[in-house]
Protein backbone atom coordinates (compact mmCIF):
# COMPACT_ATOMS: atom_id res chain seq x y z
CA UNK A 1 0.00 0.00 0.00
CA UNK A 2 1.22 3.42 -0.85
CA UNK A 3 -0.25 6.85 -0.65
CA UNK A 4 0.99 9.32 -3.19
CA UNK A 5 1.08 12.99 -2.35
CA UNK A 6 2.51 16.11 -3.87
CA UNK A 7 4.45 18.73 -1.99
CA UNK A 8 4.61 22.16 -3.53
CA UNK A 9 7.47 24.25 -2.25
CA UNK A 10 6.12 27.67 -3.13
CA UNK A 11 9.42 29.33 -2.28
CA UNK A 12 10.91 27.64 -5.33
CA UNK A 13 8.06 28.30 -7.76
CA UNK A 14 8.96 30.91 -10.33
CA UNK A 15 5.65 30.91 -12.20
CA UNK A 16 7.05 29.60 -15.48
CA UNK A 17 3.93 27.58 -16.40
CA UNK A 18 6.00 24.63 -17.65
CA UNK A 19 3.84 22.33 -15.50
CA UNK A 20 0.68 23.42 -17.28
CA UNK A 21 2.01 22.77 -20.77
CA UNK A 22 3.75 19.51 -19.86
CA UNK A 23 0.60 18.21 -18.20
CA UNK A 24 -1.46 19.01 -21.26
CA UNK A 25 0.98 17.30 -23.61
CA UNK A 26 1.32 14.25 -21.39
CA UNK A 27 -2.39 13.74 -20.88
CA UNK A 28 -3.75 14.96 -24.20
CA UNK A 29 -5.82 17.61 -22.45
CA UNK A 30 -8.10 19.39 -24.96
CA UNK A 31 -7.51 22.97 -26.07
CA UNK A 32 -8.47 25.66 -23.58
CA UNK A 33 -8.78 23.05 -20.81
CA UNK A 34 -6.37 22.53 -17.96
CA UNK A 35 -5.62 20.08 -15.18
CA UNK A 36 -3.26 22.34 -13.30
CA UNK A 37 -2.97 26.08 -12.97
CA UNK A 38 -0.69 28.72 -11.53
CA UNK A 39 -2.03 31.48 -9.35
CA UNK A 40 -0.09 34.64 -8.70
CA UNK A 41 -1.34 36.77 -5.85
CA UNK A 42 0.17 40.11 -4.97
CA UNK A 43 -0.87 41.86 -1.81
CA UNK A 44 -0.02 45.25 -0.43
CA UNK A 45 0.52 48.72 -1.72
CA UNK A 46 3.43 50.06 -3.71
CA UNK A 47 6.22 49.66 -2.71
CA UNK A 48 5.39 47.29 0.14
CA UNK A 49 4.29 44.22 -1.74
CA UNK A 50 4.19 40.51 -1.13
CA UNK A 51 3.80 37.87 -3.82
CA UNK A 52 2.54 34.35 -3.57
CA UNK A 53 2.90 31.86 -6.41
CA UNK A 54 0.75 28.83 -6.01
CA UNK A 55 0.24 26.02 -8.45
CA UNK A 56 -2.95 24.10 -7.96
CA UNK A 57 -4.23 20.76 -9.13
CA UNK A 58 -6.53 17.99 -7.96
CA UNK A 59 -5.82 17.38 -4.29
CA UNK A 60 -6.57 13.65 -4.46
CA UNK A 61 -8.46 14.09 -1.21
CA UNK A 62 -8.79 11.40 1.40
CA UNK A 63 -12.34 12.57 1.83
CA UNK A 64 -13.20 13.33 -1.78
CA UNK A 65 -16.56 15.05 -2.35
CA UNK A 66 -16.37 14.27 -6.05
CA UNK A 67 -16.25 10.56 -5.30
CA UNK A 68 -19.10 10.76 -2.79
CA UNK A 69 -21.23 12.69 -5.23
CA UNK A 70 -20.62 10.46 -8.21
CA UNK A 71 -23.88 8.60 -8.90
CA UNK A 72 -22.31 5.84 -10.96
CA UNK A 73 -19.07 5.04 -9.18
CA UNK A 74 -17.08 6.43 -12.10
CA UNK A 75 -15.05 8.59 -9.73
CA UNK A 76 -13.23 6.49 -7.22
CA UNK A 77 -10.44 6.58 -4.72
CA UNK A 78 -7.82 4.00 -5.62
CA UNK A 79 -7.20 1.88 -2.54
CA UNK A 80 -3.74 0.85 -3.70
CA UNK A 81 -2.19 4.27 -4.16
CA UNK A 82 -4.66 6.80 -2.76
CA UNK A 83 -5.29 8.56 -6.08
CA UNK A 84 -8.70 9.88 -6.99
CA UNK A 85 -9.32 8.56 -10.46
CA UNK A 86 -12.05 8.23 -13.05
CA UNK A 87 -13.46 5.19 -14.81
CA UNK A 88 -14.22 7.07 -17.99
CA UNK A 89 -16.57 4.47 -19.44
CA UNK A 90 -18.85 4.81 -16.41
CA UNK A 91 -19.11 8.59 -16.40
CA UNK A 92 -22.50 9.96 -17.46
CA UNK A 93 -21.38 13.58 -17.42
CA UNK A 94 -23.84 14.70 -14.74
CA UNK A 95 -21.26 17.22 -13.44
CA UNK A 96 -22.06 16.61 -9.77
CA UNK A 97 -18.35 16.00 -9.17
CA UNK A 98 -17.44 19.34 -10.73
CA UNK A 99 -19.98 21.17 -8.61
CA UNK A 100 -18.93 19.40 -5.43
CA UNK A 101 -15.19 20.00 -5.76
CA UNK A 102 -14.05 22.95 -3.63
CA UNK A 103 -10.84 23.14 -5.68
CA UNK A 104 -12.37 23.41 -9.15
CA UNK A 105 -10.16 20.58 -10.27
CA UNK A 106 -12.40 19.10 -12.92
CA UNK A 107 -13.62 19.93 -16.38
CA UNK A 108 -15.75 18.27 -19.03
CA UNK A 109 -13.69 16.91 -21.90
CA UNK A 110 -15.52 18.45 -24.87
CA UNK A 111 -14.57 15.55 -27.12
CA UNK A 112 -15.90 12.75 -24.96
CA UNK A 113 -18.12 14.38 -22.36
CA UNK A 114 -16.57 12.88 -19.28
CA UNK A 115 -15.54 14.89 -16.25
CA UNK A 116 -11.78 14.65 -16.49
CA UNK A 117 -9.11 15.75 -14.07
CA UNK A 118 -5.55 15.31 -12.90
CA UNK A 119 -4.63 11.67 -12.37
CA UNK A 120 -1.27 12.33 -10.68
CA UNK A 121 -0.13 10.86 -14.03
CA UNK A 122 -1.05 7.43 -12.69
CA UNK A 123 0.11 5.89 -15.97
CA UNK A 124 3.57 7.34 -15.39
CA UNK A 125 3.61 6.50 -11.71
CA UNK A 126 2.71 2.91 -12.58
CA UNK A 127 5.91 2.82 -14.63
CA UNK A 128 7.97 4.30 -11.84
CA UNK A 129 8.08 7.85 -13.22
CA UNK A 130 7.12 11.12 -11.66
CA UNK A 131 4.06 13.00 -12.92
CA UNK A 132 4.81 15.13 -15.98
CA UNK A 133 4.43 18.41 -14.09
CA UNK A 134 6.95 17.27 -11.48
CA UNK A 135 9.35 16.01 -14.09
CA UNK A 136 9.44 19.35 -15.90
CA UNK A 137 9.17 21.66 -12.89
CA UNK A 138 11.97 24.13 -13.53
CA UNK A 139 12.21 25.24 -9.92
CA UNK A 140 11.87 21.75 -8.44
CA UNK A 141 8.94 23.28 -6.66
CA UNK A 142 6.76 20.23 -7.15
CA UNK A 143 7.85 17.10 -5.34
CA UNK A 144 5.97 13.84 -5.63
CA UNK A 145 6.18 10.64 -3.68
CA UNK A 146 4.80 8.08 -1.29
CA UNK A 147 4.00 9.52 2.12
CA UNK A 148 3.75 6.01 3.55
CA UNK A 149 7.45 5.61 2.93
CA UNK A 150 9.13 7.49 5.79
CA UNK A 151 12.34 7.90 3.78
CA UNK A 152 10.70 9.38 0.69
CA UNK A 153 11.51 12.97 -0.22
CA UNK A 154 7.96 14.07 0.46
CA UNK A 155 8.00 12.50 3.91
CA UNK A 156 11.31 14.19 4.69
CA UNK A 157 10.07 17.55 3.48
CA UNK A 158 6.82 17.36 5.39
CA UNK A 159 8.62 16.33 8.55
CA UNK A 160 11.02 19.22 8.31
CA UNK A 161 8.71 22.00 7.18
CA UNK A 162 5.59 23.69 8.30
CA UNK A 163 3.06 22.84 5.62
CA UNK A 164 -0.50 23.66 4.79
CA UNK A 165 -3.24 22.36 2.56
CA UNK A 166 -5.80 24.32 0.59
CA UNK A 167 -9.16 24.94 2.26
CA UNK A 168 -8.60 22.60 5.21
CA UNK A 169 -11.98 23.68 6.60
CA UNK A 170 -13.62 21.90 3.69
CA UNK A 171 -12.72 18.68 5.46
CA UNK A 172 -11.59 17.07 2.25
CA UNK A 173 -8.21 16.05 3.66
CA UNK A 174 -6.18 17.00 0.61
CA UNK A 175 -2.98 15.28 -0.42
CA UNK A 176 -1.29 18.27 -1.99
CA UNK A 177 0.80 20.07 0.60
CA UNK A 178 2.17 23.58 0.41
CA UNK A 179 5.37 24.82 1.95
CA UNK A 180 5.52 28.57 1.97
CA UNK A 181 6.88 29.84 5.23
CA UNK A 182 10.03 31.71 4.41
CA UNK A 183 12.60 31.22 7.14
CA UNK A 184 15.33 33.71 6.44
CA UNK A 185 18.71 34.16 8.09
Amino acid at each position, binding site marked *: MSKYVMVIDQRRCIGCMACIVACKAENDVPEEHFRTRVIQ*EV*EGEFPKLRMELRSELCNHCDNPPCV*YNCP*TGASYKDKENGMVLLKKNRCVGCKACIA*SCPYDARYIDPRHGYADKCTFCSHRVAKGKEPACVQTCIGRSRIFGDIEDPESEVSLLLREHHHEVLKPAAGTEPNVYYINRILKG
Partner: protein
Amino acid sequence: MTEVTITGMNSITYPHLEVWNWLVAMYLFLGGLSAGILIMSAIANLRKWPDSASGPHCEKGVMFAPFILAFGMLFIFLDLERKTNIFWFYLTLQPFSPMSWGAWGIMIIIPVSFLYALSTAPPESRHNLRFGVLIKLSDMMWPHMKRLAMISFGLGIFLGIYTGVLLSNMLARPLWNSPILPVLFLTSASSTGAAFLIIVARRAAVKLFYTKLDIWLIFAEIVIIVLFFYGQYNSSVSSKASIMPFFTLSHEFFFYFFAVFLMAVLLPLALVMKLIEMREDHADVLSEATIFRMNLSAVMVLTGGLIIRLALIYAGQLVKFM
Protein backbone atom coordinates in the same frame (compact mmCIF):
# COMPACT_ATOMS: atom_id res chain seq x y z
CA MET B 1 -5.55 45.30 -2.43
CA THR B 2 -4.91 41.82 -3.79
CA GLU B 3 -4.05 41.28 -7.41
CA VAL B 4 -4.73 37.80 -8.64
CA THR B 5 -3.53 36.43 -11.96
CA ILE B 6 -4.56 32.89 -12.79
CA THR B 7 -3.11 30.96 -15.68
CA GLY B 8 -4.81 27.74 -16.71
CA MET B 9 -8.44 27.84 -15.60
CA ASN B 10 -11.31 25.96 -17.17
CA SER B 11 -14.28 27.94 -18.40
CA ILE B 12 -16.63 25.52 -16.61
CA THR B 13 -15.26 26.67 -13.24
CA TYR B 14 -13.83 30.10 -13.94
CA PRO B 15 -14.61 32.93 -13.42
CA HIS B 16 -17.39 31.01 -11.69
CA LEU B 17 -18.91 27.57 -11.82
CA GLU B 18 -21.07 26.96 -14.86
CA VAL B 19 -22.12 23.33 -14.74
CA TRP B 20 -25.86 23.46 -14.40
CA ASN B 21 -28.42 25.69 -16.08
CA TRP B 22 -32.17 25.98 -16.44
CA LEU B 23 -32.44 22.32 -17.44
CA VAL B 24 -31.49 21.29 -13.93
CA ALA B 25 -33.73 24.00 -12.46
CA MET B 26 -36.63 22.59 -14.46
CA TYR B 27 -35.78 19.10 -13.24
CA LEU B 28 -35.80 20.24 -9.64
CA PHE B 29 -38.99 22.22 -10.14
CA LEU B 30 -40.90 19.44 -11.88
CA GLY B 31 -39.53 16.84 -9.47
CA GLY B 32 -40.67 19.01 -6.61
CA LEU B 33 -44.03 19.60 -8.24
CA SER B 34 -44.72 15.90 -8.64
CA ALA B 35 -43.55 15.33 -5.06
CA GLY B 36 -45.95 18.04 -3.92
CA ILE B 37 -48.83 16.50 -5.88
CA LEU B 38 -48.18 13.12 -4.25
CA ILE B 39 -47.95 14.59 -0.75
CA MET B 40 -50.98 16.81 -1.12
CA SER B 41 -53.20 14.22 -2.74
CA ALA B 42 -52.20 11.67 -0.12
CA ILE B 43 -53.21 14.07 2.60
CA ALA B 44 -56.56 14.59 0.93
CA ASN B 45 -57.10 10.89 0.42
CA LEU B 46 -56.04 9.89 3.90
CA ARG B 47 -57.88 12.51 5.90
CA LYS B 48 -61.40 12.11 7.17
CA TRP B 49 -63.65 14.49 5.31
CA PRO B 50 -66.42 16.09 7.38
CA ASP B 51 -68.99 15.77 4.66
CA SER B 52 -70.35 12.55 3.32
CA ALA B 53 -68.08 12.68 0.28
CA SER B 54 -65.54 10.07 1.16
CA GLY B 55 -63.45 8.14 -1.33
CA PRO B 56 -60.55 9.35 -3.41
CA HIS B 57 -60.04 12.99 -4.21
CA CYS B 58 -58.28 14.89 -6.93
CA GLU B 59 -57.77 11.66 -8.86
CA LYS B 60 -57.04 13.57 -12.05
CA GLY B 61 -54.31 15.57 -10.36
CA VAL B 62 -52.58 12.45 -9.11
CA MET B 63 -52.41 11.09 -12.61
CA PHE B 64 -50.20 14.06 -13.54
CA ALA B 65 -47.55 13.17 -10.94
CA PRO B 66 -45.73 10.30 -12.72
CA PHE B 67 -45.84 12.15 -16.03
CA ILE B 68 -44.56 15.43 -14.59
CA LEU B 69 -41.78 13.51 -12.90
CA ALA B 70 -40.89 11.68 -16.11
CA PHE B 71 -41.00 15.00 -17.94
CA GLY B 72 -38.67 16.44 -15.32
CA MET B 73 -36.31 13.53 -15.80
CA LEU B 74 -36.15 14.37 -19.46
CA PHE B 75 -34.56 17.70 -18.51
CA ILE B 76 -31.86 16.10 -16.40
CA PHE B 77 -31.30 13.60 -19.18
CA LEU B 78 -30.77 16.45 -21.61
CA ASP B 79 -28.20 17.88 -19.22
CA LEU B 80 -26.07 14.71 -19.20
CA GLU B 81 -22.91 14.95 -21.28
CA ARG B 82 -22.79 11.22 -21.97
CA LYS B 83 -26.41 10.22 -22.39
CA THR B 84 -25.67 6.74 -23.69
CA ASN B 85 -24.07 5.90 -20.36
CA ILE B 86 -27.27 6.53 -18.43
CA PHE B 87 -27.65 2.81 -17.70
CA TRP B 88 -24.76 3.10 -15.27
CA PHE B 89 -27.13 4.82 -12.85
CA TYR B 90 -28.88 1.50 -12.46
CA LEU B 91 -25.92 -0.82 -12.27
CA THR B 92 -24.81 0.61 -8.96
CA LEU B 93 -26.08 2.32 -5.84
CA GLN B 94 -23.70 4.89 -4.48
CA PRO B 95 -24.65 5.33 -0.83
CA PHE B 96 -23.24 8.87 -0.51
CA SER B 97 -24.49 10.21 -3.81
CA PRO B 98 -27.89 11.91 -3.68
CA MET B 99 -28.07 11.67 -7.43
CA SER B 100 -27.73 7.92 -7.22
CA TRP B 101 -30.50 7.76 -4.62
CA GLY B 102 -32.57 10.06 -6.75
CA ALA B 103 -32.11 7.97 -9.88
CA TRP B 104 -33.24 4.86 -8.05
CA GLY B 105 -35.94 6.73 -6.17
CA ILE B 106 -37.47 8.09 -9.33
CA MET B 107 -37.44 4.63 -10.85
CA ILE B 108 -39.59 3.51 -7.91
CA ILE B 109 -41.71 6.64 -7.61
CA ILE B 110 -42.87 6.70 -11.22
CA PRO B 111 -44.49 3.23 -11.20
CA VAL B 112 -45.74 3.49 -7.62
CA SER B 113 -47.29 6.88 -8.21
CA PHE B 114 -48.80 5.57 -11.40
CA LEU B 115 -50.39 2.69 -9.51
CA TYR B 116 -51.52 5.14 -6.85
CA ALA B 117 -53.08 7.28 -9.55
CA LEU B 118 -54.88 4.25 -10.97
CA SER B 119 -56.12 3.32 -7.51
CA THR B 120 -57.79 6.70 -7.14
CA ALA B 121 -59.88 6.33 -10.28
CA PRO B 122 -63.50 5.93 -9.11
CA PRO B 123 -65.38 3.01 -10.73
CA GLU B 124 -67.77 5.31 -12.59
CA SER B 125 -65.00 7.13 -14.43
CA ARG B 126 -62.64 4.20 -14.88
CA HIS B 127 -63.66 3.82 -18.52
CA ASN B 128 -61.72 7.03 -19.15
CA LEU B 129 -58.54 4.99 -18.82
CA ARG B 130 -59.32 3.58 -22.25
CA PHE B 131 -56.90 0.66 -22.22
CA GLY B 132 -58.20 -2.63 -20.88
CA VAL B 133 -54.98 -3.33 -19.05
CA LEU B 134 -55.18 -0.03 -17.22
CA ILE B 135 -58.81 -0.51 -16.31
CA LYS B 136 -57.99 -3.96 -14.98
CA LEU B 137 -55.02 -2.62 -13.05
CA SER B 138 -57.19 0.13 -11.66
CA ASP B 139 -59.70 -2.47 -10.50
CA MET B 140 -56.92 -4.30 -8.75
CA MET B 141 -55.46 -1.20 -7.06
CA TRP B 142 -58.77 0.34 -5.95
CA PRO B 143 -58.86 -1.58 -2.64
CA HIS B 144 -55.26 -0.57 -1.84
CA MET B 145 -55.81 3.13 -2.39
CA LYS B 146 -55.17 4.17 1.23
CA ARG B 147 -52.04 2.04 1.46
CA LEU B 148 -50.72 3.44 -1.84
CA ALA B 149 -51.53 6.95 -0.66
CA MET B 150 -49.48 6.35 2.45
CA ILE B 151 -46.54 5.04 0.43
CA SER B 152 -46.84 7.90 -2.04
CA PHE B 153 -46.86 10.39 0.81
CA GLY B 154 -43.56 8.95 1.99
CA LEU B 155 -42.10 8.88 -1.50
CA GLY B 156 -43.27 12.45 -2.09
CA ILE B 157 -41.50 13.60 1.05
CA PHE B 158 -38.38 11.72 -0.09
CA LEU B 159 -38.55 13.25 -3.56
CA GLY B 160 -39.14 16.76 -2.25
CA ILE B 161 -36.23 16.52 0.12
CA TYR B 162 -34.03 14.89 -2.50
CA THR B 163 -34.31 17.84 -4.87
CA GLY B 164 -32.85 19.97 -2.09
CA VAL B 165 -30.24 17.51 -0.85
CA LEU B 166 -28.92 17.20 -4.37
CA LEU B 167 -27.65 20.76 -3.93
CA SER B 168 -27.26 21.06 -0.19
CA ASN B 169 -24.67 18.33 0.21
CA MET B 170 -22.13 20.32 -1.81
CA LEU B 171 -19.89 22.04 0.64
CA ALA B 172 -18.07 23.64 -2.25
CA ARG B 173 -21.10 25.80 -3.05
CA PRO B 174 -22.01 27.78 0.08
CA LEU B 175 -25.38 28.97 -1.17
CA TRP B 176 -26.52 25.40 -1.64
CA ASN B 177 -24.70 23.98 1.35
CA SER B 178 -27.45 24.76 3.86
CA PRO B 179 -29.58 22.21 5.75
CA ILE B 180 -32.50 24.56 5.33
CA LEU B 181 -32.40 24.13 1.57
CA PRO B 182 -34.06 20.64 1.52
CA VAL B 183 -36.70 21.92 3.93
CA LEU B 184 -37.27 24.95 1.73
CA PHE B 185 -37.53 22.77 -1.36
CA LEU B 186 -39.90 20.36 0.39
CA THR B 187 -42.12 23.21 1.52
CA SER B 188 -42.00 24.84 -1.87
CA ALA B 189 -42.72 21.47 -3.49
CA SER B 190 -45.76 20.94 -1.28
CA SER B 191 -46.94 24.45 -1.95
CA THR B 192 -46.62 24.10 -5.73
CA GLY B 193 -48.29 20.70 -5.47
CA ALA B 194 -51.20 22.23 -3.65
CA ALA B 195 -51.36 25.06 -6.17
CA PHE B 196 -51.38 22.59 -9.02
CA LEU B 197 -54.19 20.58 -7.42
CA ILE B 198 -56.19 23.76 -6.85
CA ILE B 199 -56.11 24.34 -10.59
CA VAL B 200 -56.87 20.74 -11.51
CA ALA B 201 -59.50 19.90 -8.86
CA ARG B 202 -63.15 20.36 -9.71
CA ARG B 203 -64.93 20.13 -6.41
CA ALA B 204 -65.20 23.32 -4.42
CA ALA B 205 -64.47 21.52 -1.17
CA VAL B 206 -61.20 20.17 -2.52
CA LYS B 207 -60.18 23.51 -3.96
CA LEU B 208 -60.89 25.21 -0.68
CA PHE B 209 -59.09 22.49 1.24
CA TYR B 210 -55.90 23.03 -0.73
CA THR B 211 -56.30 26.77 -0.55
CA LYS B 212 -56.36 26.46 3.22
CA LEU B 213 -53.35 24.14 3.23
CA ASP B 214 -51.48 26.42 0.88
CA ILE B 215 -51.92 29.35 3.22
CA TRP B 216 -49.88 27.49 5.80
CA LEU B 217 -47.38 26.29 3.23
CA ILE B 218 -46.80 29.73 1.74
CA PHE B 219 -46.49 31.17 5.19
CA ALA B 220 -43.94 28.47 6.06
CA GLU B 221 -42.13 29.06 2.79
CA ILE B 222 -41.79 32.78 3.45
CA VAL B 223 -40.49 32.12 6.94
CA ILE B 224 -38.02 29.52 5.65
CA ILE B 225 -36.77 31.80 2.88
CA VAL B 226 -36.19 34.59 5.35
CA LEU B 227 -34.50 32.18 7.74
CA PHE B 228 -32.41 30.82 4.89
CA PHE B 229 -31.02 34.22 3.97
CA TYR B 230 -30.68 35.18 7.60
CA GLY B 231 -28.79 31.99 8.36
CA GLN B 232 -26.49 32.43 5.37
CA TYR B 233 -25.85 36.03 6.36
CA ASN B 234 -24.82 35.01 9.87
CA SER B 235 -22.69 32.07 8.77
CA SER B 236 -19.19 31.83 7.35
CA VAL B 237 -17.63 34.36 4.99
CA SER B 238 -18.45 32.15 2.03
CA SER B 239 -22.09 31.75 3.05
CA LYS B 240 -22.44 35.47 3.56
CA ALA B 241 -20.87 36.17 0.21
CA SER B 242 -23.11 33.59 -1.44
CA ILE B 243 -26.33 35.55 -0.90
CA MET B 244 -24.89 38.87 -1.97
CA PRO B 245 -26.02 38.50 -5.60
CA PHE B 246 -29.61 38.68 -4.35
CA PHE B 247 -29.07 41.95 -2.56
CA THR B 248 -26.78 43.74 -4.97
CA LEU B 249 -28.58 46.03 -7.32
CA SER B 250 -26.25 46.07 -10.29
CA HIS B 251 -26.45 45.17 -13.94
CA GLU B 252 -24.50 41.98 -13.34
CA PHE B 253 -26.78 40.65 -10.61
CA PHE B 254 -30.07 42.11 -11.74
CA PHE B 255 -31.61 38.70 -12.35
CA TYR B 256 -31.03 37.69 -8.73
CA PHE B 257 -32.24 40.93 -7.28
CA PHE B 258 -35.31 40.71 -9.46
CA ALA B 259 -35.92 37.13 -8.29
CA VAL B 260 -35.96 38.24 -4.67
CA PHE B 261 -38.19 41.14 -5.57
CA LEU B 262 -40.64 38.84 -7.35
CA MET B 263 -40.70 36.44 -4.43
CA ALA B 264 -41.33 39.33 -2.07
CA VAL B 265 -44.34 40.34 -4.16
CA LEU B 266 -45.75 37.04 -5.45
CA LEU B 267 -45.78 34.96 -2.29
CA PRO B 268 -47.39 37.52 0.04
CA LEU B 269 -49.83 38.48 -2.69
CA ALA B 270 -50.82 34.84 -3.19
CA LEU B 271 -51.10 34.48 0.57
CA VAL B 272 -53.39 37.49 0.86
CA MET B 273 -55.55 36.32 -2.05
CA LYS B 274 -55.98 32.93 -0.41
CA LEU B 275 -56.82 34.48 2.94
CA ILE B 276 -59.53 36.50 1.21
CA GLU B 277 -60.88 33.32 -0.42
CA MET B 278 -61.09 31.62 2.94
CA ARG B 279 -62.99 34.51 4.53
CA GLU B 280 -65.69 34.43 1.92
CA ASP B 281 -68.65 32.10 2.08
CA HIS B 282 -68.69 29.82 -0.88
CA ALA B 283 -71.49 27.85 -2.30
CA ASP B 284 -71.03 24.25 -3.47
CA VAL B 285 -70.38 25.57 -6.92
CA LEU B 286 -67.76 28.25 -7.09
CA SER B 287 -68.31 31.34 -9.17
CA GLU B 288 -66.18 31.93 -12.23
CA ALA B 289 -64.55 34.92 -10.58
CA THR B 290 -63.60 32.87 -7.55
CA ILE B 291 -62.10 30.13 -9.70
CA PHE B 292 -60.17 32.74 -11.64
CA ARG B 293 -58.78 34.26 -8.46
CA MET B 294 -57.89 30.84 -7.11
CA ASN B 295 -56.15 29.85 -10.32
CA LEU B 296 -54.34 33.17 -10.50
CA SER B 297 -52.93 32.81 -7.02
CA ALA B 298 -52.01 29.19 -7.81
CA VAL B 299 -50.13 30.28 -10.90
CA MET B 300 -48.30 32.81 -8.74
CA VAL B 301 -47.26 30.06 -6.37
CA LEU B 302 -46.09 27.86 -9.23
CA THR B 303 -44.16 30.75 -10.76
CA GLY B 304 -42.62 31.45 -7.38
CA GLY B 305 -41.54 27.82 -7.10
CA LEU B 306 -39.87 27.92 -10.50
CA ILE B 307 -38.14 31.23 -9.73
CA ILE B 308 -36.73 29.82 -6.49
CA ARG B 309 -35.20 26.88 -8.35
CA LEU B 310 -33.83 28.99 -11.19
CA ALA B 311 -32.39 31.65 -8.91
CA LEU B 312 -30.78 29.17 -6.56
CA ILE B 313 -29.32 27.04 -9.35
CA TYR B 314 -27.66 30.00 -11.02
CA ALA B 315 -26.73 31.99 -7.93
CA GLY B 316 -25.30 28.93 -6.20
CA GLN B 317 -22.64 28.72 -8.87
CA LEU B 318 -21.43 32.27 -8.44
CA VAL B 319 -19.71 31.93 -5.09
CA LYS B 320 -17.56 29.08 -3.96
CA PHE B 321 -16.27 27.85 -0.64
CA MET B 322 -13.44 30.08 0.47
